[in-house]
C-alpha cells in the first residue's frame, strides 16, 4: 500500500503521454514521483490511447522518416494551420525540442515504425509508433514503473489546495473514499474537457449534444477547471478544438481512429437539406482533414452525408461501418432521411458543373467544377455510377484547446502575470498556448512529449534544489 503521508517531490495529475514524459523525466533527475490517473487501468492515458504518430523536426532522413523536416518548415506549417494563432516563442521552443524527442522517447522504450499503410503523405514529417498509441503508452508505463514512479489508477482528483499560486496538496478519489497527496510541485497533465458535454454546451449550445467524443469519457477537464478557478491564467478560445467528421453510427465515446472518414475528396458532402456547404476539393486531404468536424458542427442537426458512387468505393481506406447503398439517388435518399428530389437536384447540378480533367488525388489536380457555389476545386468527378453510396457523419471531438497559460519552463502563469512557484502543465491542458486554432497531424503528441519532458525536469529541479 502506497504511503500517502509522505510528501512527494512531484505530483503528476493525468496518465497520458504528457504525464508519463513528465513523470519519467522528473524521476530520472532523482525526484520522488506520484502519478494520479483518473481513469481505470485499461482506459489509462486519455487520448494517447488513440494516437499513432508524433510530428518532430529533423534535419535528415532517418530509418523511418523519408526526408528532412526542418525547424523552419515545421514552424511555417504551424503558422499556416493556426493562421498565426500561436505563441511564437513557445512554438519555436517546442519545435526545437522536438528534434531531441525523436531519440529521447526511444530511450523511454517507445519504438518507431515507418508511416502506416494509407498515410504515405505523412512519411516525411511524422514518426509512427510501432503498435500505435496504446503500445507507446504501455512502453512509457513500463519504463516509469521500472524507474520506481508510483502510479494510482481510478484516482480522480476532486480538489486542489493552492495558496497564492503555490500548490500544496491534491484530494482524489480512492476506492470508495478520498485521499490526499502532498507534493513539492505539481505537473498538471490531465487533458482537455472534450468529454464534458455540459462544458462544451457553454460555448456551443445545444449543438454539443450531437457531438461524438473520439476519446474516453474521462477527459472531463476537472483539473483544468480547478486551476482556472484558483488564479491560473486562461488561454485559448473555448470553441476551438481538434474535430473531424466521423461516422454518425460511432459510439458516443472512445470510437478512436477507426470511425473517421477519408472519403470526402472522392465525393460531395451534403447537409440534412441535401445541400452542399463547403468546397470538398479545397486542399490535399491530410491538410484539410481536421476542418470537417467544425464544418459539420455548423450544419443543422450537426449531421452531414458524404455521397459518392461505386467508381470510387475502393479508392480510400476500408471503413468500420459499411457505406449505405442505393441503386438510384432516389433510393438512397430515404435511407439517409433526405428529400429525394432535393438530393437528385444537388447531384444533377454538381454533375453538370464538373469539367473534364485528369484525376489524381495525390496532387491538386485539374478536375473541378465551374459555375457552382460552393465549388469543388479539385478531384471533382461526376457521381453517376450505381450503386450510390453514403456515409453519415457527425463532428467527432478529439480534444479542446482552451487551457492554462504557461511559460518556457512549462510553468503555469497566474492571472496577475507572475509564474507559479511550483505548478507546471503539459499536454492538451496547455495545448492552446501553441494551437490557437487548426491542427497538423501529430502535433498533440509533440506538445505532450516536449512540454511533459520540460515540466518534469523543471518540477524536479525545483523540488530537489
Amino acid at each position, binding site marked *: 500500500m502506497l504511503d500517502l503521508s509522505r510528501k512527494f517531490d512531484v505530483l503528476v495529475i493525468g496518465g497520458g503521454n504528457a504525464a508519463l514524459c513528465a513523470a519519467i523525466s522528473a524521476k530520472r533527475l532523482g525526484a520522488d514521483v506520484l502519478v494520479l490517473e483518473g481513469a481505470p487501468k485499461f482506459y489509462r492515458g486519455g487520448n494517447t490511447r488513440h494516437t499513432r504518430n508524433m510530428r518532430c523536426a529533423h534535419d535528415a532522413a532517418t530509418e523511418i522518416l523519408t526526408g528532412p523536416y526542418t525547424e523552419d518548415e515545421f514552424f511555417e506549417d504551424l503558422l499556416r494551420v493556426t493562421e498565426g494563432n500561436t505563441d511564437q516563442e513557445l512554438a519555436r521552443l517546442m519545435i526545437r525540442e522536438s528534434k531531441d524527442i525523436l531519440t529521447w522517447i526511444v530511450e523511454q522504450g517507445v519504438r518507431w515504425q515507418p508511416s502506416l499503410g494509407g498515410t504515405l503523405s505523412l512519411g516525411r514529417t511524422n514518426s509512427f*509508433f510501432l503498435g500505435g498509441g496504446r503500445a507507446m503508452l504501455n512502453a512509457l508505463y513500463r519504463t516509469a514503473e521500472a524507474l520506481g514512479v508510483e502510479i494510482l489508477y481510478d484516482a480522480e482528483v476532486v480538489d486542489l489546495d493552492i495558496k497564492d499560486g503555490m500548490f500544496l496538496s491534491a484530494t482524489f478519489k480512492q476506492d470508495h473514499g478520498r485521499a490526499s497527496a502532498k507534493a513539492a510541485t505539481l505537473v498538471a497533465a490531465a487533458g482537455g474537457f472534450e468529454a464534458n458535454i455540459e462544458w462544451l454546451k457553454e460555448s456551443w449550445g445545444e449543438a454539443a449534444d450531437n457531438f461524438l467524443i473520439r476519446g474516453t469519457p474521462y477527459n472531463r477537464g476537472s483539473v483544468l477547471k480547478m486551476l482556472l478557478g484558483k488564479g491560473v491564467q486562461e488561454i485559448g478560445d473555448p470553441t476551438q478544438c481538434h474535430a473531424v467528421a466521423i461516422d454518425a453510427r460511432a459510439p458516443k465515446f472512445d470510437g478512436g*481512429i*477507426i470511425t473517421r472518414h477519408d472519403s470526402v475528396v472522392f465525393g460531395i458532402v451534403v447537409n440534412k437539406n441535401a445541400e452542399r456547404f463547403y468546397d470538398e476539393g479545397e486542399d490535399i486531404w491530410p491538410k484539410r482533414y481536421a476542418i470537417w468536424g467544425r464544418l459539420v458542427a455548423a450544419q443543422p442537426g450537426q449531421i452531414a452525408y458524404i455521397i459518392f458512387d461505386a467508381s470510387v468505393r475502393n479508392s480510400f481506406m476500408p471503413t*468500420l461501418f459499411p457505406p449505405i447503398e442505393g441503386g438510384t439517388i432516389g433510393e438512397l435518399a430515404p435511407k439517409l432521411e433526405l428529400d429525394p428530389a432535393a438530393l437528385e437536384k444537388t447531384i444533377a447540378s454538381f454533375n453538370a458543373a464538373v469539367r473534364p480533367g485528369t484525376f489524381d488525388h495525390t496532387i491538386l489536380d485539374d478536375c473541378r467544377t465551374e459555375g457552382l457555389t460552393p465549388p469543388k476545386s479539385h478531384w471533382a468527378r461526376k457521381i453517376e455510377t450505381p450503386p450510390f453510396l453514403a456515409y453519415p457523419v457527425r463532428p467527432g471531438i478529439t480534444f479542446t484547446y482552451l487551457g492554462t497559460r504557461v511559460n518556457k519552463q512549462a510553468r503555469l502563469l497566474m492571472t496577475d502575470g507572475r509564474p507559479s512557484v511550483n505548478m507546471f502543465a503539459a499536454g492538451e491542458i496547455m495545448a492552446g498556448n501553441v494551437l490557437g486554432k487548426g491542427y497538423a497531424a501529430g502535433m498533440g503528441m509533440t506538445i505532450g512529449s516536449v512540454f511533459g519532458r520540460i515540466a518534469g525536469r523543471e518540477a524536479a529541479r525545483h523540488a530537489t534544489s
Partner: protein
Amino acid sequence: MPRAKILAEADRLMTVCNSCRYCEGLCAVFPAMEMRRAFSDGDLNYLANLCHACGACYADCQFSPPHEFNVNVPRTLAIARNNSWRAYAWPQAFAGLFARNGVAISIIAALSVAIFIFGFAALTDHEVLVGVHTGPGAFYALMPHNAMAALFGAAFLYAILACVMGMRAFWRDIGAPAGMTTDTASLWQAAKDACTLRYLDGGGVGCFNEDDQPTDRRRIDHHFTFYGFLLCFAATSVATLYHYLLAREAPYPWWDLPVVLGTLGGIALVIGPIGLLLAKSQRDPVLVDSARSGMDVAFILMLLLTSVTGLALLLLRDTAVMGPLLALHLGVVFALFITLPYGKFVHGLYRFVALVRYALERRAMAPGAATE
C-alpha cells in the same frame, strides 16, 4: 452453408483492424490483411495460420476488452486456426482426434507401448525382455532391426502422407495459385521466417504471456524444442545410415555422432518443452483457445516423454531396465509419429505454408504494384 461463427467474428475483427492498421508493424498478419478489403473463409484461415499467437496486438489494442468493440485477435484466430486444422485433417474420419486429442494421444501411446512389450514377450523369451544386453546389436535382441525399421518407417511415411494431404487442403482453401509453391525466393524467405520465429517477437519486444510485460522466453523455449527435435531426428537418420551403409549397429559409443546429436537434442527437448508447458500454464487465458489447450499440452508432453525416455535409455542402457525402457521409448516415439498429423505438430506445417503464401504476396505487391 452458413459461415462458422468464429469466422464471422474473425471477419468482423479484420474489418475493425483494417480501418485502424496500428498493428501493421507487429507481424505478418496485419500487412496480409491490408492486402484485402473483404475476407473469404479461406482468407481468414490463412490469416489465422499466419498468426504466431504472440499476443502483442491484444496488449497494444485500444479496442480490446473491456472496450465495446471487443477486439481480441489472438484468441479469435487461435480458435479459427484450431478449427481449420480439423477441417484439413486427412483422412477426415480422424479429424475428430483433434477435438479429443489429449486423451487420444495417451490412449494410443499406452496401447502401442503395451503392444511392444507383449510383442517382445511373445516373440522372444522372458529373459530377453529383462536381461542385460550390451555391445552392437544389443537393442535388436528385443526387436529385430528390420522389424523396427519397417514398423517405424511405415508409421513415419503415414504421418508424412497425412501431413502432405492436410497441407494440400490448406493451400487450396486459402485460394493460393496452383503451381507457385516452387517459387524458391518465397520458400527461402518463409524458411528464414519460420526458423527464426520472426513473428513470435511482438514486433521486437517479445511475447505477451502471463501479464503485460513482454518476454522472449516463449520464442527461446520454442527454439530449444524445435532444434532439439531436429537434432534427435538427425541422430536417428545418421544411425539409420550407419546401419545400412556402414553396417554399424546401435548402440554406439557416447562420442559417436548419433549419440552426440541425440544427447544434445534430447537435452534441448527437455528444456524447451518444460519451458513451453510452464508458459502455457501461466499464460493469460484471454489470449488462447482454452477449450483446446489439451491438444497443445499433449503434443508438448509427448515430445518431453520422447526425450526423457531417450536420455534414460542412454544412461541405463547397460542395465537390466534397458528392455522395458527401450519398449517405452519406442512406444512413445511410435505414438508421436502416428499422431503428428492430428495434433499440435501441424501448426508448424500450416504456418510455414502461410508464410510461403505471405512471401509470395509480398513479392507480388513489391515495387511497381498498385497502391491505394
